[in-house]
């Protein structure tokens, strides 16, 4: 009942949104698939926006198209409706640098993929013939996998039929009082069929081959426009291109997963940050490498209509630190070295709400299941108000910028003391004024 009321209330709140359908307007946009330091993320630059933001020294993919654009108030962002209208344009993209040199860029076929994953970033871009070759390779191994899967399903089905038949025979012979030992042995010895492993060649498989203007530029400000095949300039295609780069790299940040809210992790990216917690649950940390970018430029690289502060720099997460260890101090006697381990979230049974995080046991309770998270567990309690931690690399050397403190806050022993301290200047004032008045009266 309560749930229904909540849903109705939510829907009613959305009424104004549904009542006024977002206005869709035709726009000449740039679709941008930009590399953001850790992966490729899509965004678009609508007509009203004058600047495109890209990171320097990496391949970024741009296309020009006509589509419908509308503002979505629920998330406060602009969106495209390419299902209704999507007209890509050919031509030559002209990129002009500060010195006035114009470089023409033509459409190229491309694909991109990652072979090693979040612990070892290894993004690659293949163009034209190479793209075809990569795609063909991926298609080939996927076909092989599909075929192996088909064969596996057939064998599983065959084995299943055989098992059923055996069981029926054992039952009927047992009912007939005959010896079924051999048949039972045969049933027990039936091997569990192993499913074929999915292809391990790619962590992020190659994307379907597309066509785009591929831009890989040094830092600076450029202007660009689209020249149509007939030689004319596409109206509305003039944009400024801000190519930026990281100021510093190889910083260390931590993804902080609280034990009681494991689906809502937070990030601690500022190197001088202190983690203040209430100590009500343990923490699970995942250290990552981070690079420092301009707040505004980076935000607009990810999403062109986002906001940011051009005067500030921000550390952005790039990749997980591979094979790291964490040295803890203050969590017990001496320094403790902890390793990254897999964990499993065990839901409460039956009507019990909640969960607990337990060590992942692939051979035991979690057989056939994947770990819920892989992280460093930091045990906390009110008895350890300050815990120091430092990440070490695979060689055991401290990673620069990875030192952090975790401080467990507790209510102070006597809350009145601090307000009383704040009154000390007042006491001093009274003493001074009274003392002076006394001296004056004595005269």
């Amino acid at each position: 009942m309560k749930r229904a009321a909540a849903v109705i209330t939510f829907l009613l709140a959305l009424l104004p949104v549904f009542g006024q359908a977002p206005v869709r307007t035709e726009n000449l946009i740039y679709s941008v698939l930009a590399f953001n330091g850790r992966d490729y993320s899509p965004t678009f630059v609508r007509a009203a926006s004058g600047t495109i933001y890209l990171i320097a020294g990496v391949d970024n993919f741009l296309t020009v198209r006509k589509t419908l654009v509308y503002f979505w108030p629920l998330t406060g962002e602009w969106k495209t409706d390419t299902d209704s209208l999507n007209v890509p344009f050919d031509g030559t993209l002209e990129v002009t640098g500060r010195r006035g040199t114009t470089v023409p860029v033509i459409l190229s076929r491309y694909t991109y993929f990652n072979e090693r994953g979040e612990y070892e970033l290894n993004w690659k871009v293949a163009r034209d013939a190479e793209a075809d070759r990569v795609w063909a390779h991926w298609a080939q191994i996927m076909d092989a996998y599909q075929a192996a899967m088909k064969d596996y399903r057939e064998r599983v089905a065959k084995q299943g039929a055989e098992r059923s038949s055996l069981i029926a025979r054992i039952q009927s012979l047992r009912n007939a009082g005959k010896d079924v030992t051999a048949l039972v042995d045969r049933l027990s010895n039936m091997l569990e069929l192993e499913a074929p492993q999915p292809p391990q060649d790619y962590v992020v498989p190659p994307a379907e081959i597309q066509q785009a203007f591929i831009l890989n530029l040094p830092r600076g400000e450029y202007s660009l426009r689209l020249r149509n095949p007939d030689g004319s300039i596409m109206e509305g295609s003039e944009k400024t291109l801000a190519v930026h780069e990281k100021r510093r790299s190889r910083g260390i940040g931590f993804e902080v997963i609280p034990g009681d809210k494991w689906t809502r992790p937070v990030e601690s990216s500022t190197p001088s940050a202190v983690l203040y917690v209430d100590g009500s649950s343990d923490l699970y940390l995942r250290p990552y490498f981070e690079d420092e970018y301009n707040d505004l430029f980076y935000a607009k690289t990810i999403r062109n209509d986002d906001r940011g502060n051009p005067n500030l720099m921000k550390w952005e997460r790039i990749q997980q630190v591979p094979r790291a260890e964490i040295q803890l101090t203050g969590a017990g006697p001496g320094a403790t070295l902890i390793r990254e381990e897999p964990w499993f979230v065990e839901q409460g049974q039956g009507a019990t709400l909640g969960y607990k995080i337990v060590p992942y046991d692939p051979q035991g309770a979690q057989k056939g299941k994947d770990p819920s998270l892989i992280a460093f567990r930091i045990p906390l309690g009110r008895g350890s108000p300050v815990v120091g931690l430092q990440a070490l690399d695979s060689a055991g050397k401290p990673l620069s910028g990875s030192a952090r403190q975790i401080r467990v806050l507790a209510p102070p022993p006597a809350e009145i003391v601090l307000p009383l301290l704040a009154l000390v200047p007042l006491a001093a004032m009274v003493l001074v004024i009274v003392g002076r008045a006394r001296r004056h009266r004595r005269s």
Partner: protein
Amino acid sequence: MIQARALVKRYGTFTAVDGIDLHIRPGEIYGFLGPNGAGKTSTILMLLGITRPTSGEVFLFGERYTPSRLDLRRRIGVVPEKHPRGVWPWMTAEEYLRFFAELFAIPRPQERIDSLLKKVDLHGFRNKRIRELSRGMLQKLSFTRAILHDPDVLLLDEPISGLDPLGIQQVRDLIVSENRDGRSIFISSHQLSEMERICHRVAIISKGKLMAEDTMENLVARLFREREIHVELEKVPHGLAALMKKLPSVLDCTVNANTLIVTVPRQGDFRRVISEFLIGQSQVPLRIQERMVSLEEAFVTITQENIGSLVSSGGGG
């Protein structure tokens, strides 16, 4: 001590001080007089280095004075026209003096402050705050501050303005006492009767120009070429005045009740001639007295008649 040469001060197109020469000698009490707006204050401020002259020079103790010569300023004590009541009203009289004692780096300051407070009869009020002191006490406090560092010259701007007769007397006594101790004193004041009593020399300024600078006697002698001698008789017989007039040294003779008013030249002593004449007329004078010209009369004469030639003919200081 203090010398000003051709001092000029202009504020835009208005000339407040127009080529003044002053000379205050060691050990004298020098009066500086002038009507409102004559340029007295502007002159004083230039002497002290508070404002810069448009042209001209100031010499203190024989040395050319500029505002950066704080060492020369140490030798002057200043009592401004009004003690700034709004300044440090929270300070006690003693704290006020201690502050200036520290500023002037006076040795054994507490001894000096105590003795001076006793001298000016303020010792009992030393812990009173400035805002609680009366006008007279403030003036005495100002005076004490000015002599705290034992200056060679005291510069007083309207020192008795606003004081009651007792206060005036006390300040006058202080001035005379300090002068007796060897200090030169420069006084700017409107109280002409007081100035007459204590000043050795006076200067009169009008419309930015120095009209006269001399002793009282010389000033009167230059301004007034005649003297009046009042002869009191029991009764003035008819025709006596006309007969008196015929005497060669007598310029004029009038009668006022039982008094003959005989006008004679400034130079010379005519009392004997007059006495002999009266005896010859069988008249016995009850009293023969010369009427003294006051500083006020001299002041009014100079400022209203603008006798500029007196400056060049008198030779002043």
